[in-house]
């Protein structure tokens, strides 16, 4: 039995979780505490890094105390401490990682700096038996990637977005339709009364090989359609939201289908598709992926919504998996670990030239 505390502060959620990993590899979530900063950022129309950093340092210790209390354990009981060390907003990552360093040092316990994307990549195994290998579709406000997961620490990136992340596209589209934030849930509820077929939005990257994603053209198409209407009524907005959501869902499913082609030969008789990240909570997207998985004979695994969005339990779990696999730095190395704004989980596929950015790949 290994008892692990996980701390997550990479965006606008201050989170801590306590999990126990049983010798058979099963996970027991003892506590999962998230303090959402949403209200503090709302006036600015998006996450403000300095406000996020200030909020994390104000609460992270209390969130940790709350999680430990809920778990029924004291810090001395812990076998290890895990914390998100990147990628993310550096001011927040610094706060959570530093607090975790202090707790690990205080009890001479291993400290595991966790890649936030690895937290999402392994999150399906928090609540379900999801044996390796599996295909991971990671869709969140900051990331959109398809990754072949062969084991803990063994990731191969098959594709990723060349412009906006999926969640970012929902946020931007919600904003231009005047639906407010957070964009995902707002578009989803607006789309309920909408007719997707009224607008024919172009399918992104329809003739492009591989399984990269693109969302910025789709967002522009929605803007142009809205401008053509002039002053959209509630029904226009509902129809546009439905069309956007349906096209985004179809795009995600189409590219995931291509990734299935790439790995199917190696995945055996019971291939699995895992979807993680906040956008996985969207029902239309889940339905499109379910249809794809059923049609292809794959098993679809989607963690419960609270483990799709940022949380401390998944970071604790990634730490526990690393500990079990022997992939843990010495305490001295971990105490000196520098928080990282950018930290790709896996290198981009060979031949990928676009989307690097001045400081290299973002994630």
């Amino acid at each position, binding site marked *: 039995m290994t008892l692990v505390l996980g701390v997550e502060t990479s*965006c606008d959620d201050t989170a801590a979780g306590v999990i126990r990993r049983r010798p058979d590899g099963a996970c027991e979530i003892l506590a999962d505490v998230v303090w959402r900063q949403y209200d503090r*950022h709302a006036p*600015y129309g998006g996450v403000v*890094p300095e406000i996020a950093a200030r909020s994390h*340092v104000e609460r992270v*210790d209390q969130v940790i105390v709350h999680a430990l209390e809920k778990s029924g354990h004291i810090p001395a009981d812990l076998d290890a401490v895990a914390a998100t060390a990147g990628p993310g907003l550096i001011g927040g990552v610094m706060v959570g990682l530093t607090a975790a360093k202090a707790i690990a*040092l*205080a009890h001479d316990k291993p400290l595991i700096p966790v890649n936030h994307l690895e937290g999402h990549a392994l999150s399906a195994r928090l609540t379900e038996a999801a044996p390796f290998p599996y295909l991971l579709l990671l869709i969140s406000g900051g990331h959109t990637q398809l990754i072949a997961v062969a084991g803990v620490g063994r990731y191969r990136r098959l594709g990723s977005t060349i412009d906006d992340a999926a969640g970012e596209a929902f946020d931007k589209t919600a904003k231009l339709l005047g639906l407010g934030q957070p964009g995902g849930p707002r578009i989803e509820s607006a789309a309920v009364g909408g007719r997707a077929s009224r607008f024919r939005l172009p399918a992104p990257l329809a003739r492009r090989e591989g399984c990269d994603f693109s969302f910025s053209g789709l967002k522009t198409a929605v803007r142009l359609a809205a401008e053509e209407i002039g002053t959209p009524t509630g029904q226009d907005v509902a129809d546009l939201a439905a069309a956007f959501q349906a096209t985004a869902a179809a795009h995600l499913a189409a590219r995931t289908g291509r990734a299935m082609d790439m790995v199917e030969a190696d995945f055996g008789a019971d291939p699995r598709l895992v979807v993680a990240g906040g956008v996985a909570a969207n029902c239309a997207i889940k339905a499109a992926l379910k249809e794809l998985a059923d049609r292809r004979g794959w098993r679809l695994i989607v963690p419960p919504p609270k483990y799709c969005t940022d949380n401390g339990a998944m970071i604790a779990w990634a730490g526990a998996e690393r500990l079990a696999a022997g992939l843990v730095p010495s305490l001295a190395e971990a105490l000196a670990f520098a928080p990282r704004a950018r930290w790709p989980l896996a290198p981009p596929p060979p031949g990928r030239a*676009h989307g690097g950015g001045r400081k290299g790949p973002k994630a």
Partner: protein
Amino acid sequence: MPALPNDDFGAKDRTMIVLGLDTALKACSAAILKDGAPLARTSAPLERGHAERLAPMVAGTLAAAGLSARDIDRVGVVVGPGTFAGVRVGLAFARGLAVGTGIEAVGVTSLAALAAGIATATAPLRAAVIDARRGQVYAALYDAALVPRLEPFVAAPEEALRRLMDAAGGAAVALAGDGVAPMGPAPKGWIAEGGPDVIDAMAVARLAAGAARPEAPPAPLYLRPPDARPAAAAAFAGLLARGDAP
């Protein structure tokens, strides 16, 4: 390493071991004070990167003192004003240590820590002034017992000098900190180089040791609002900064 039992554990006046930390300005420092006597001290000049230096430095300082982190009874930390990121690293560490071991974390301002480095005999009053960049300084005025006469504030250097003079009411002031020079020539009778530019973590430990039991965890003293504009311009800044994973 198992906790080293205090040899007088349980005695009426048992020892008090205080860890002092500073990451607020251009250095990273840790010091350990035992019953008012310095045990170990480490400091390195550092503009940025406190998040990777502080924890190993604390571990090294504890080892030099022959102590484990669980021997610490109280942690004192500089809460600012200073660099926002530096202040947060110090506070996150101190508060993490506090919740990890059940000890108290006590906040000390950078200005009080600097003023503590001024010899008491030099003048009846002491002021610390720190270069806050963007054409401003952080400043505060204290009496000989380090009781604030003027609480920490941020202002243009000439405005800061005027406020310090008003509050001093004609008494001589000894100055410390790298914000003294930007204020221009010191008034007659004042001592411009009364103390250090660099915070001594041992002074932080001493101030924390003498402080009353805190009612709440220490919080940052920024003295400046976050750089953020409502709505449009700032929209999506966070998501973009986080990266869309190309």
